[in-house]
């Protein structure tokens, strides 16, 4: 029993050892990796690209599997590594094809894109050219508008300038008018005869000139108008006094000339006197020179003394002088009324003789004074003879 049992145990042990010795060892890592590589999704493409390499790899895989199953691990690993290399080689070739295809696709796409871009760029260039032209057109329109605006502004500026110049000219004219008015006032010596007004006018005129220089035309015009009016007022105020003085002076000079010329007339006496506001130059012609005794008509051939007197009256320089022809007698020799009548008649005779000699009748008046204005002592014969006279009286102021 024991022997049988021991033999059985020995048999079981032997069988176990035999089966253990014949069991497949663990699969090498390299073979695992090879199997994974075979399952790569790109492998079909690799097989198509490199069939010889893949056949060699398949063969290496079979050998590796066989060697593994036959417990020859070293050989299995060698074959597995070789198989990996072949598969990897085939996959690399496949990858190259893929990359080449990608490059070709990319080049095609690049070519198409470049072509499309060139077209788009050309369109863009055309569009930009059109836009440029349009912008030029718009710019020209804007330039035209700006030019028109500029022209309008220039026109307005010119108008303003013209208006300013006109205003300045008007102001200048008004100031000139005022200056003329002041000068006119000066011609009538307003500084003397209307000093307040003249001074005021001069001051206002100076103010107007200053305002004009400062560009204040309206104020200058206003001031010039006031200056003109004031100067006119001054001239108006000064004129009568000036005229009077001027006339007086002129008359005096003329009277001097008249007196000198009258003094040179032979057969007459000449004198000057003042009566009221009037001055007189008196040419006294003795009555006996022109009249016979008690007569009032000029004696024939005795009126030649009137010739130079008539010439003197008619002389242009003395035409302004009113002339009186006044007859005088002495205070004796008759009634006063008779003397007055005789003196008036004699004066009228001389008056007529002078008119006959061309003297303007409107310049003269004749009257008789009788013996009211003797010039000599009436108690003597010589005195009485002197008082019988006809006087030609020039009047002036």
């Amino acid at each position, binding site marked *: 029993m024991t022997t049988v049992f021991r033999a059985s145990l020995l048999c079981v042990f032997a069988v176990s050892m035999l089966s253990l010795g014949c069991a497949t060892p663990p699969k090498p890592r390299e073979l695992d990796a090879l199997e994974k590589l075979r399952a790569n999704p790109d492998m079909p493409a690799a097989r198509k690209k490199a069939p010889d390499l893949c056949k060699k790899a398949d063969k290496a895989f079979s050998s590796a599997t066989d060697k593994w199953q036959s417990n020859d691990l070293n050989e299995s690993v060698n074959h597995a590594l070789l198989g990996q290399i072949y598969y990897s080689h085939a996959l690399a070739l496949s990858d190259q094809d893929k*990359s080449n295809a990608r490059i070709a696709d990319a080049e095609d796409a690049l070519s198409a894109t470049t072509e499309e871009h060139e077209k788009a760029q050309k369109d863009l260039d055309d*569009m930009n050219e059109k836009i440029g032209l349009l912008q030029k057109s718009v710019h020209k329109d804007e330039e035209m508008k700006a030019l028109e605006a500029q022209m309008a502004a220039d026109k307005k500026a010119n108008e303003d300038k013209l208006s300013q110049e006109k205003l300045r000219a008007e102001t200048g004219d008004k100031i000139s008018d005022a200056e003329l008015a002041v000068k006119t006032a000066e011609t009538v010596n307003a500084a003397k005869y209307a000093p307040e007004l003249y001074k005021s006018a001069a001051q206002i005129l100076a103010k107007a000139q200053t305002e004009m220089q400062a560009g204040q035309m309206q104020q200058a015009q206003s001031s010039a108008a006031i200056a003109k009016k004031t100067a006119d007022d001054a001239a108006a105020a000064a004129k009568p006094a000036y005229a009077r003085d001027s006339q007086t002076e002129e008359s005096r000079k003329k009277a001097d000339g008249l007196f000198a010329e009258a003094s040179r007339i032979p057969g007459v006496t000449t004198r000057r006197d003042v009566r009221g506001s009037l001055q007189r130059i008196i040419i006294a012609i003795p009555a006996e020179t022109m009249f016979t005794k008690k007569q009032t008509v000029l004696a024939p051939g005795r009126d030649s003394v009137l010739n130079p007197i008539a010439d003197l009256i008619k002389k242009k320089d003395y035409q302004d002088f009113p002339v009186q022809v006044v007859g005088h007698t002495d205070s004796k020799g008759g009634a006063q009324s008779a003397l007055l009548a005789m003196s008036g008649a004699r004066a009228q005779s001389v008056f007529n003789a002078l008119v006959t000699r061309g003297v303007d009748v409107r310049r003269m008046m004749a009257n008789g004074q009788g013996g009211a204005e003797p010039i000599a002592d009436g108690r003597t014969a010589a005195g009485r003879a002197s008082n019988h006279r006809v006087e030609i009286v020039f009047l002036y102021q």
Partner: protein
Amino acid sequence: MTRYATVFLFLAFLAVPVLARAGEADDLQRQIDYLKQTTTDLERQDEQKAVSSDIMMMRSWLDNGWTLRSQEKYDEVRIILDRCEAQANMVRQRLTAAKLSAQAAAKEDEVKRARAQLARTKKALENAKIQKARLEGKV
């Protein structure tokens, strides 16, 4: 004379295997050196480091081959050299594939840039059309 010739032939017969094995070792050494140089060249070409692990593995195999050659296990060395030769060819193709892939990627980038440029040009064209219409309205 005949006896000497016989001895010589006998010695020569004994020397042939020894000499043959010595030539085989030298030949294997040359192959290993050649493949090591190939490895160096491949490393230099691998600018993108795409196959550095494959080259490293090949270098370790060659080191192992050198050891086996020293142990005069020439058959095993031959197996390793065949594998390294195949590995070198595979690495060359993978390098080529990597370069082509890089070229493809560059081309695709170029396409992307061109498309972006095209999109910008088209956008500019659209804007120009709008501007033109606006200007035409002004004129």
